[in-house]
């Protein structure tokens, strides 16, 4: 190395560059990535971003994080965009999810110090946390269900005895479901306010104020089906999609978005369908057909969320789950809407609706499962590809370093000899 040589930062070995990049903040990394192709290539490795994120939060440079979601989001649902996968791996989640993860990292370090790797400890921590969460949720739902169902049965029994009317089990169930939903959404709203998530709270309030009362009145004034059902259905569908899109970063938000809103929606559609077809008293078969996907969707979706959360890399969660769940529910909702319109337009279908519904729901479920599997495969491939790339790079770097040191040592020994 002579003094006259003109050095470039690019000339530094990958190991030295790695040391530098590991200490850079997010903004510097982003700048370096557009400075040179070599840097851009090296910075495809998410470990630098991960480290920078943690450092930024630890140094309380939170100002680097807001607004990120807004700019990253549009590409999240564009699988054709190669940056799609980059985002998944580098950022993998939106702002709240990111902050939650950082919080988890910090709590793990405080609560579960030990010799095992951080990822193992995070996994163990999250497993405990999620088990607790699901247990509490299940207990809460059970208690609420029992309470509301009892109240509704009591109210209807009293009303029916005074008017001499007869109510079906479907009436009890539907009304209980709506009350349960109002309670649930109310709790989520309060929770969102407490968490200062104004945007989410706004959405939930929208559901409470506009949609659920609409459903309620629609249920009561059954003669105005066409007037009430279509706008309410569309509004509900829109809310479901928007909430799916926006609320995926929070446990309760995600559970609501993926499980409960579609479930309520299906309950509503079921009651609408049955009353339209004048089949309120024949509840067994159509009710079970309509509820099959909803019934298995709740544990199924929860399982997927749970599994993804635990098994994947801490920073690589949410994406595939979100995608597959949205596809799954959209498929069901769209098909249901279509068949409802068909049924409404031609009463002849009422004699054959069993045959229409079964393949359509099977198709919807198949579509959901197909996208789920596809998404999981892609996601898994992508995850492994990133890990493989990282491991290969690290192995290569170590090998190069070893060879270089050995060569230098040999050279010096020969010179001395």
């Amino acid at each position, binding site marked *: 190395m002579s003094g006259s040589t003109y050095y470039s*930062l690019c000339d530094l070995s990958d190991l030295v560059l790695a*040391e530098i990049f590991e200490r*850079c903040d997010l903004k510097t990394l982003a700048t370096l990535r*557009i400075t040179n192709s070599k840097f*851009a290539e090296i910075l495809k490795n998410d470990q630098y971003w991960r480290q920078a994120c943690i450092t930024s939060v630890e140094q309380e440079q939170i100002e680097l994080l807001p607004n*990120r979601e807004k*700019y990253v989001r549009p590409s999240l649902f564009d699988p054709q965009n190669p940056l799609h996968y980059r985002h998944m791996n580098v950022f993998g989640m939106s702002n709240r999810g990111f902050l939650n993860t950082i919080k988890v990292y910090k709590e793990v370090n405080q609560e579960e110090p030990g010799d095992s790797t951080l990822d193992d400890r995070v996994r163990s921590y999250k497993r405990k946390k999620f088990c607790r969460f699901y247990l509490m949720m299940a207990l809460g739902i059970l208690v609420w269900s029992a309470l509301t169902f009892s109240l509704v049965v009591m109210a209807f029994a009293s009303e029916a005895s005074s008017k001499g009317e007869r109510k079906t089990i479907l009436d009890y169930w539907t009304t209980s479901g709506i009350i349960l939903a109002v309670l649930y959404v109310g709790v989520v709203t309060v929770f969102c306010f407490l968490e200062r998530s104004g945007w989410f709270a706004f959405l939930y309030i929208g559901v409470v104020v506009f949609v659920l009362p609409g459903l309620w009145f629609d249920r009561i004034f059954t003669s105005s089906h066409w007037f009430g059902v279509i706008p309410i259905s569309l509004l509900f569908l829109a809310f479901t999609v928007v909430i799916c899109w926006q609320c995926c970063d929070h446990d309760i938000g995600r559970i609501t978005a993926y499980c409960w809103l579609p479930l309520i929606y299906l309950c509503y559609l079921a009651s609408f369908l049955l009353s339209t077809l004048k089949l309120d008293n024949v509840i067994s078969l159509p009710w079970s057909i309509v509820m099959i996907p909803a019934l298995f969707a709740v544990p199924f979706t929860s399982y997927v969320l749970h599994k993804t959360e635990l098994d994947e890399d801490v920073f690589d969660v949410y994406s595939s789950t979100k995608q597959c769940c949205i596809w799954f529910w959209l498929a069901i909702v769209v098909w249901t809407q279509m068949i409802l319109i068909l049924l409404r337009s031609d009463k002849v279908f009422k004699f054959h609706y069993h045959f229409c519904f079964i393949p359509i729901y099977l198709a919807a479920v198949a579509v959901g499962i197909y996208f789920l599997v596809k998404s999981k495969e892609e996601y898994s491939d992508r995850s492994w590809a990133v890990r493989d790339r990282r491991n290969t790079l690290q192995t290569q770097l170590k090998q190069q370093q070893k060879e270089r040191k050995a060569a230098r*040592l040999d050279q*010096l020994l020969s010179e*001395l000899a």
Partner: protein
Amino acid sequence: MSETLTLVSADGKTLTAPKDAIMRSAMLKNLLEVAANSDEQIPLDFVHSEDLENIIEYCKYHVEAEGKASEGDISKWDGEFINRVTQDDQKHLRLIQTTDQLQIEGLFKLLVQGIVRKLHNKTPEQIREKWNIPDDLPKEKKDEIFNTTNWLYKKSQ
């Protein structure tokens, strides 16, 4: 009086340094353990004399300060030393490469930190100019990458 060693730089300059200071370099330590005779000169043909002087100064200080100076004093000295030796960006890069090859961990980390400080709040153009980096990314690619992280450049609310 501690044992001294003679080191020969790439530009032929001969420098002596205490052996315990030289042992701060993992590479030279390995070398001395395997073969070198302290009476002989050690040729370091990849090290410029100016860098060698700086490295010896750093190692000597740390050997002497160990157990005597406080952490604060050592940090202060390190800061002043790094500021002095990294004023010239070219020399900074050369020194970081040399330190990496000699495997002097403490100095290497300080120099890396120095680079990171210099990179902070710079634009891509400033970085390219400062560090002699070729602008080899097509504009479309740059825009594409930039759009993925442009939130970082927005002023927070």
